[in-house]
């Protein structure tokens, strides 16, 4: 049971990291257009197959 005294505070550290990541990604605008991105993820192969330019220049 002693391990719990270590594991529980670790859980707290994890949640702080996750929360910081979430806020960072929201501020970066990654959640601004959920409809399109949800769809794009499923059609990844379609959009990369014959695109003349790489996807990496999308900002």
């Amino acid at each position, binding site marked *: 049971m002693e391990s719990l005294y270590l594991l*529980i505070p670790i859980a707290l550290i994890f949640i702080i990291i996750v929360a910081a990541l979430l806020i960072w990604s*929201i501020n970066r605008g990654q959640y*601004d257009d959920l*409809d399109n991105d949800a*769809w*794009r993820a499923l*059609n990844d192969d379609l959009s990369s197959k*014959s695109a003349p330019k790489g996807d990496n220049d*999308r900002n």
Partner: protein
Amino acid sequence: MNVEPAATQCFHCGETLPTDATLWVQVDNTDRAVCCVGCQTVAKLITGSAMTAFYQQRTNYPPTADQQATQTSDWYNDKTWLETFAKVNAEQQEIPLLVTGMSCAACAWIIERFLREQTEAQSIHVQLTLGKVTIHLHPDSNAGPVIDVLQRLGYGVQPWRADSRLQQMREDYRRDLRRLGIAFLGMMQVGMFAIALHAGALQGIDTDLQQLLRLMSAPLTLFVLVYSGREFFERAWQHLKHRTLIMDSSVALALALATAASLWSTVQGGGETYYDSVTMFVFFLLLARFLEKRLRDRDLIQLVQLADELPEFVAVLKDQQWQRLPRHRVRAGEIIKVATGEAIAFDARVTSGTSIINESVFTGEALPRTVLKDDVVFAGTVNEGASLELIVEHDFHESRLAALAQDIDQARQDKPVHLQLIDQFAARFIGIVLVAAAITFIAWWNIEPAKAFWASIAVLVVACPCALSLATPAALTAGNAWLGRRGVRVRSETGLLAAATANHIIFDKTGTLTETRLVISSIFTAHGVEIDSALNIAAALQQFSSHPAARPFHGIDHNAPLRNVEIIAAQGVEGWDGERNVRLRLGNLNFCRQIAPGLPERPDENHYWIALVEDGRWLAWISLSETLRPGTKHLVSALKKEHLTLEILSGDTAPRVHQIAADLDMPFTAALQPQKKLEELKNRQNAGATVMAIGDGLNDAPLLRAADVSVAVAGATALAQAQADFVITEESIDRLFMIRKAAFATRRITRQNLAWAAGYNLVGLPLAALGYVPPWAAALGMSASSLLVVLNSLRLRRLKD
């Protein structure tokens, strides 16, 4: 090769096909019927580029290709204008565009794909939710060709101008999402600790471990409360300053007390904690608000920008030369030219030219008005005839269109409010609870002081307004989402509540009950002339005209040998019969009488009439009338059975409104200006009616704004859509049934929720006051009752069509 079995809808855009559809496009080895050349071109463009996947992936139809009449791609080659909204520097041009007609993710995909193949474009970024497409170009290249591709695909393109409202909306969205996300994470983690604590309470737990779990929960809960839950406290405080209590007041009080009690227990090392209930409550309340707000924001985004559909550039006469100037630089007194198909940007007077102006947005009249020299035309109307030269009479902000916008602002303040009910209720509720808690404390203090604090906390927790405050928003959110999936966009928070109580329905005529296109309804021929041969000649003459009155003829087969066909603006069409060498005319009374003096008067005033004559002899009077939208008759008779008062308020002339009203057996008032429509509405409301208004035009906008609940139909002007609570996106008006159905179901669920919440409090409060409810049971009951309300509301998802 397969041929698709009898299709009724255009494969590309979903419009109903004309009965004699002859246009096809081959998709995946199957011939598919399309409605017009525009759709055919776009469909070929898409299939020809191996992007057929678009048709499998789409969830909505793209816009009809010919909806975008004016091609404006060359504007975008004008660098000085471009710089008014684009960012241009030495490395690249960043051009933000508002693209209309992007209805689903497949549209976003096809736009990205097509634009990437343009050599000018460095990169493309499509934001579907905003309807925004950002294009990055090389600094030297022109944007015109890229814009042209978008327009050829059938999408409307406008410059995207930074708007403080949209900026604000994005900031709000991100802030709400951050708060919601943090509340969720906090709820999950605190909930995990809580499960351990509850399990420990049942089967025994180390007090040290229990204390550790509480010490971990406390900072998490406090953070969620301060970060995510602050809006409850802020709003409660604002209202407190004005000495009013709202739902948020009791929410804030409950949150504060439950947290304070939990902290007290933690510090004392005994008693109950409510950390899990607090975080859960914050999350569910925020979630309901977030979903509901997001639903409304989506439409606002486009409407903010679309409210202004006037051309960006105007041709102005300067130093004897036509120059294209941005609209905002044109002043009163200048001469402007408006080409065919363009919207007029100012209130102005005709100085030269003859044309026809479509004013249906203002007047509700389906056929355009003929304008000659010295006639006045209005901003927002469309020039459908030949090009016109106009002298600008007023700056834009003094125009009739601007005045209409002011009327709408006025009407906004007069709108009846429907959600205040719950806030009034809350004010009384919170008072009762506070008194009950105080009495409990005092009573126990005298009987058994040790129990006083926990019993009064139990009272407050049991009486927590969670379920009450979630009851209405949860049901509304579910009801609105249900409608959203069925072709009705919901723009207002409380429209559904008002829709359920509406007992008086006001319809606009043109464009709402009727379609704006005309059909041939009857033909009177002179002695000896056969109807078919009259139609044959008329169709042959009309094939060259694009006047709205000519369109009904375009589907008719004709073989009359004609030559020298000439369209005379605002009069009609003239041509020569190639075999018999006689002159033929089709058009208005005076024009036709010039060659056939014997032409009798129009048979009646209820229709639009067109005469057909040849030299010295009249052949026929052909009448055109508006057609009812599909489903209108069924809708009206069904609504009558429900004992609703129906009526038509129209800006069109009395005989024509009478025609439609008689057909539907409804009372009507005709020839109403927008201001008069508003007065009529007020009279009904003052007489005690709860009014639902349904319209489409600019002239309906104030009416829609002020009605208790309002619906804009498919194809309504942006200004009208912006004012309506609901926007029907399907052609058929019978979506109104869906709105009513959702409204009743939502009201039923709301009542169940409220009854449950109230009943729970009625039973729980006395028990808690008597000390029978241990605080953990109070907390469990509070969470369970909120959850029940949410789950009950989710039943709306399964409502049948």
